[in-house]
């Protein structure tokens, strides 16, 4: 399959997983919210989060053996840049109440004004940072 067809099919699977999650559990599938909730230690609200995480990592294991190219990391990024990015993504998604899944897919589909603003904001800032890295810093940080 070509790159564009795979992108579309993969997107449909992402949407399907999110629909099934709503059907089964009644919740919005948002990865940052599911992870962040682990730090709130609410009673009876933890085990399902670990099950979801285990499912995601298991999906990753399946991909690793069936489609190893799915995990090619070909950017020139130092450990410091990766760690900084991780801290910003962790803190920012919690402060902004969602990431690409919860805001970008589920929220935009619901026409939520908050999610639409969030999606334009993180895409805009992401694009600005990529512009600086690729065109001013020679593609490496």
């Amino acid at each position: 399959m070509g790159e564009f067809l795979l992108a579309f099919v993969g997107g449909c699977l992402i949407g399907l997983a999110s629909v099934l999650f709503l059907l089964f559990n009644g919740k919005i599938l948002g990865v940052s919210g599911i992870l962040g909730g682990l730090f709130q230690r609410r009673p009876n609200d933890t085990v399902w989060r670990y099950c979801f995480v285990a499912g995601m990592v298991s999906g990753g294991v399946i991909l690793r053996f069936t489609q190893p190219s799915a995990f090619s990391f070909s950017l020139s990024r130092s450990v410091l840049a990766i760690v900084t990015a991780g801290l910003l993504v962790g803190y920012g998604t919690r402060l902004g109440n969602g990431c690409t899944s919860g805001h970008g897919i589920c929220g935009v589909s619901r026409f939520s004004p908050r999610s639409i603003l969030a999606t334009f904001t993180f895409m805009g800032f992401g694009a600005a940072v990529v512009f600086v890295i690729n065109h001013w810093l020679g593609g490496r940080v």
Partner: protein
Amino acid sequence: MIAHLAASFFCGLLFALGLGVSGMTQPAKVTAFLDFGGDWNPSLLLVMAGAIGVYSIGYRLVLKRPQPLFPGKFQIPRLRKVDRPLAIGSAVFGVGWGIAGFCPGPALASVASLQREPLFFVASMLAGMAVYEGVERWRRA
């Protein structure tokens, strides 16, 4: 209870497979999508089209039911007001996303590859989330 946890696991697995098939787990593709001023790769637009297409139909069908399949109520965010934490958090997230090319879901699935970048990214992302919870608890106290 077990079925509920199995459903969480299954949705996580399907979600991760969709991310891998779509190309979202390859940070170079993500930054190429965000590089509007350079060699723009539109494939992630098709990921969003597939995911939003399936979810916007599926979510409306699911919400015709009185409740989810497993005990509990639908928990759909009702807040529609745009506020400052939403905008700042999304901007911070966007900066991190642009630096590493990882958002929370694809990074989590990529842990299975045992490569250095996703491992460092996810560890620091969880640290960023823990910092957020710590700050919130301190502010409320």
